[in-house]
């Protein structure tokens, strides 16, 4: 691609940082290209719910900071002071936070700017971004298909080059699945790695702010600025943030990866492509071994469904329509359903004195133990990110557990609080849709994800942006 045809919005975050440092272009020029792209495509794709005013000036003002004023798109369930935060619900249509979430505060302190707020399934309750109160988002790779969810707007923003990188959140799969469906890198950090303060809460015991980026390097770089202990989040990890980009290029030969869920029949089509991934990893000197499925991942769906709904019911109690937001009757059907089913899970004891929430948390322990056992044999484990390619627009309607089923391969690592990285591992020539590889590491070992992920990315043709030069 010749320089004269280059649109600056097509760069990766790293390429943009370097370009600014080398004075190849200015913040104003970069913002102009981003704004032009947004103007051309946002209406059709429905990616951004709101855009920050004065982005160019704000960006220029941060020129000397580490992140040089570069803009980031932010999922609209992450509170941004003075910028409307709706969680894609009409209940919060008029809500403008008087506080900043910790993750955006940290990124702003490093000199990033907020480009705008992206669409999601309302309250993050979904895996399609079809259940937003503000209309569905389309998959930029092929607009007849869904971008996935709930961070579908954040995924589409990056996939369409409307944003350099974006923030998302994952509770049961909501970063990695849309990243896979849109052909991007999706990072769900270890639970507690990034502060939940300011995130509209869903399931407090699994909610994890994270990133959707064009490359593994961008995710490694940005995580360093986002992560860290926060006294205002009671489950924030005390381990300090790292400069994870220093992991890139470290040797990977000799690492051992366990391949999960390869023996599940429903994954036959996808597993063929993951077999190719195993071959490619082996060519890098990594040992890949298929692991017979122990606990059925469908059981993780059951755990996640109950735990999430119970915690959602508790968390959405704060929306009383008195201090902020519209009345509780404004909740959409999906939110009402989850609140009710969650309340039932918390309030019930059946004949055998089982409380469903407690029972789910016992089964959760089984999954945690199984991963601990796996990590005595393997450095990492991997699976397909999604059981399928992106699905067509309209499929999520009237499917009661659509979200939870789509995220089957991700829920085990979510309930265990493990870090996971999804990266593109195949692209269909006809549909232009991608498949994602899901790498999972022990809690706190994002370094291994970046090391192996970047090596894979560097040695395969699946990343659209890597060789932009």
């Amino acid at each position, binding site marked *: 691609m010749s320089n004269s045809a280059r649109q600056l919005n097509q760069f990766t975050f790293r390429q943009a940082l370097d370009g600014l440092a080398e004075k190849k272009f200015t913040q104003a020029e970069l913002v102009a290209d981003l704004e032009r792209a947004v103007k051309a495509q946002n209406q059709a794709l429905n990616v951004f719910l709101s855009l920050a005013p004065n982005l160019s000036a704000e960006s220029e003002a941060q020129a000397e900071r580490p992140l040089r004023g570069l803009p980031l798109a932010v999922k609209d369930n992450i509170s941004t002071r003075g910028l409307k935060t709706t969680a894609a619900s009409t209940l919060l249509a008029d809500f403008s936070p008087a506080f900043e979430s910790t993750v955006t505060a940290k990124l702003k302190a490093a000199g990033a700017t907020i480009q705008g707020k992206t669409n999601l399934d309302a309250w993050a309750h979904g895996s399609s971004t079809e259940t937003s109160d503000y209309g569905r988002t389309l998959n930029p790779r092929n607009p007849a298909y869904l971008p996935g969810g709930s961070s579908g707007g954040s995924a589409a923003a990056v996939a369409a080059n409307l944003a350099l990188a974006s923030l998302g959140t994952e509770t049961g799969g909501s970063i990695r699945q849309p990243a896979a469906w849109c052909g991007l890198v999706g990072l769900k950090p270890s639970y507690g790695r990034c502060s939940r303060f300011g995130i509209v809460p869903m399931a407090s015991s699994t909610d994890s702010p994270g990133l959707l980026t064009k490359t593994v390097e961008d995710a490694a770089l940005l995580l360093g600025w986002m992560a860290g202990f926060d006294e205002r989040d009671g489950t924030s990890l005390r381990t300090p943030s790292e400069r994870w980009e220093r992991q890139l290029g470290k040797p990977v030969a000799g690492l051992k990866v366990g391949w999960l869920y390869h023996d599940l029949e429903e994954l036959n089509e996808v597993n063929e492509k993951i077999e190719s991934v195993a071959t490619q990893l082996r060519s890098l000197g990594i040992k890949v071994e298929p692991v017979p499925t122990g606990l059925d991942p469908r059981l993780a769906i059951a755990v996640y469904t109950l735990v999430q709904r119970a915690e959602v019911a508790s968390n959405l109690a704060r929306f009383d*329509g*008195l201090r902020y937001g519209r009345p*509780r009757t404004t909740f959409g059907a999906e939110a009402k359903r989850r609140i009710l089913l969650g*309340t039932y899970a918390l309030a019930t004891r059946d004949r055998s004195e089982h409380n*469903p929430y407690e029972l789910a948390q016992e089964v959760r322990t089984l999954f945690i133990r199984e991963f601990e056992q796996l990590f005595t044999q393997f450095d990492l484990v991997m699976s397909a990110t999604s059981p399928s390619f992106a699905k067509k627009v309209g499929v999520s309607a009237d499917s009661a557990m659509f979200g939870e089923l789509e995220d089957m391969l991700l829920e085990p690592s979510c309930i265990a*609080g493990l870090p996971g990285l999804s990266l593109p591992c195949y692209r269909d020539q006809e549909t232009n849709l991608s498949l994602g590889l899901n790498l999972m590491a022990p809690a706190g070992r994002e370094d291994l994800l970046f090391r192996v992920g970047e090596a894979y990315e560097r040695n395969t043709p699946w990343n659209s942006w890597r060789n932009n030069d």
Partner: protein
Amino acid sequence: MKQSQVQAIAAMAQLPLSAAEAKVLSTQFKETLAVIAQLETAPTKGVAPTYQLTGEYNRWREDLVRPELSFNQAEALSNAPRAHQGYFVVPRILKSKP
């Protein structure tokens, strides 16, 4: 699940439901009950629940006012649907005179 049970749960959740909504929702409990039945097949005898992953319990902080972490009154009221002279306006709870 009977509609009356659904309404009882809705009352617990302070979630007013129309009769039509209650009717639809009463049919959707089936799927949750199936999920619970599935969990009951797992070998959880003697297994402790994991409620959250950090292994810590209550975190405490000093009982000191930190203005930088608090709203002032204007900020606190900034999204109030109804405010009056520095107060949140709430629905009447007490119907009769004390």
